[in-house]
């Protein structure tokens, strides 16, 4: 009897864990994280809105490319003005590259002129692993129905050169434009590029 209870427990635990793994065209798993000002956010509070998740590490050369060129801030500003929620998430563990104090995060975000909705701190990596975030940047888009509709790179030029931003096809803006005009996202997955997430 004890063995049966144990097996049932394992079965439910496995199902719960699998259910929490993000996958395309499925409900995006909910999470709760605090931002760099100490305010708690959950994905569920943005029901009915399009949400962008951007994995971030300010010291990664690939992230620098998109912030130093202002590409990321322009995307954040353009789409948050259209009602999109933009959450930057940092999964760098304590002591690893990209992990900063809240003051340092807020200072850097201000210097960059970041226009995201919030910078969320995931230092134990739970949310990063739940979404399968591998690189910085790694981009995810959740539509107003709460489904994950895009996972992958920000664009199609795998480099750290700021000059490439102008030449690249931006997958995130293309997907967001399609969502905002009521269309299906045409490219749902691409291969992300960048530094490893420092779990």
């Amino acid at each position, binding site marked *: 009897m004890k063995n049966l209870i144990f097996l049932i427990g394992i079965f439910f635990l496995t199902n719960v864990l699998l259910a929490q793994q993000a996958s395309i065209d499925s409900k995006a798993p909910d999470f709760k994280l605090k931002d760099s000002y100490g305010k708690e956010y959950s994905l569920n509070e943005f029901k009915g809105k399009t949400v962008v998740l951007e994995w971030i590490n300010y010291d990664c050369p690939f992230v620098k490319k998109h912030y130093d060129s202002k590409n990321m801030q322009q995307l954040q500003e353009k789409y948050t003005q259209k009602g999109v929620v933009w959450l930057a998430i940092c999964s760098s563990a304590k002591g690893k590259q990209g992990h900063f104090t809240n003051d340092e995060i807020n200072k850097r975000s201000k210097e960059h002129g970041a226009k995201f909705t919030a910078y969320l701190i995931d230092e134990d990596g739970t949310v990063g692993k739940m979404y399968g975030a591998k690189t910085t940047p790694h981009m995810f888009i959740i539509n107003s129905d709460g489904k994950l509709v895009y996972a992958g790179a920000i664009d199609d030029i795998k480099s750290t050169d700021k000059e490439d931003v102008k030449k690249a096809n931006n997958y995130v803006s293309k997907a967001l434009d399609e969502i905002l005009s009521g269309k299906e996202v045409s490219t749902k997955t691409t291969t992300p590029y960048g530094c*490893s997430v420092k779990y």
Partner: protein
Amino acid sequence: MIKNLFGIILIFSQAIVHPKTFVELSLYKADSKTYICLNFTIENGWHLYWLNSGDTGIPTEITWNLPDGIEISDELWPIPKAFEVDGLVSYGYENNASIFYEIIFKDYSEIHNKDITCKINSLICKDICIPFDTVITFNLSNLKSRFNQNELKDLLNNQFPNKEHSLELFGKIEGDKVLLEIKNNSENETIESFSFFPFENGIFKNVLANEFYKELESYLIKIEFDPFRTHIPEKLEGILILFYSENNSRIKKSFEISVPLKYY
């Protein structure tokens, strides 16, 4: 083809491309063919990436600017190593990497006093990553030898995948994975582990070693799809590495494979 290259070492040159790595260029002649080798020496603890960088990083890109009358082949990449950090697996090289190209020209005597330029766009990583983008010009008449014949033979036998093999391979798609079947023809071989390094990124989960099981006279290797794969390929293409025991010795063999995939 490349494994028959036990040729005459002709010329060599080197350049620092980044404080953590420098490259040397050397030239080898075998039968009627000539090869150049771009060798990277990498500072201990750091690594560069293969043509498929895996979960992180970017592939090393090398582009050549050649004078009229000289052409080169695509890269012949050595077998990469798989690195695992925090559950993310990448493919690349540490310490040393020798990339070969076949060099083609109309008249060998004309290659002397000619410059060839290569642009290397890469990323060198440890716990952090540093990108570099360097252009180097080598004068072919300044090159000297790097490997002696034994070193070259050892390098080519141990560090490059066999392009030709007699393995019987069958690939089938089964749900969220590919099952690669290898018919085991040798009674003396007991395969202990398999690693598959795909040429294309973003299709399969990157792993250090693949799970497998034995069924009658076959080995069945599980190659899982990435949950965010960009497409389902028609062929399984990459490097298959086998570790097996033979006469109490552990042997590593690697093969470049291209196996059509069928739905099961």
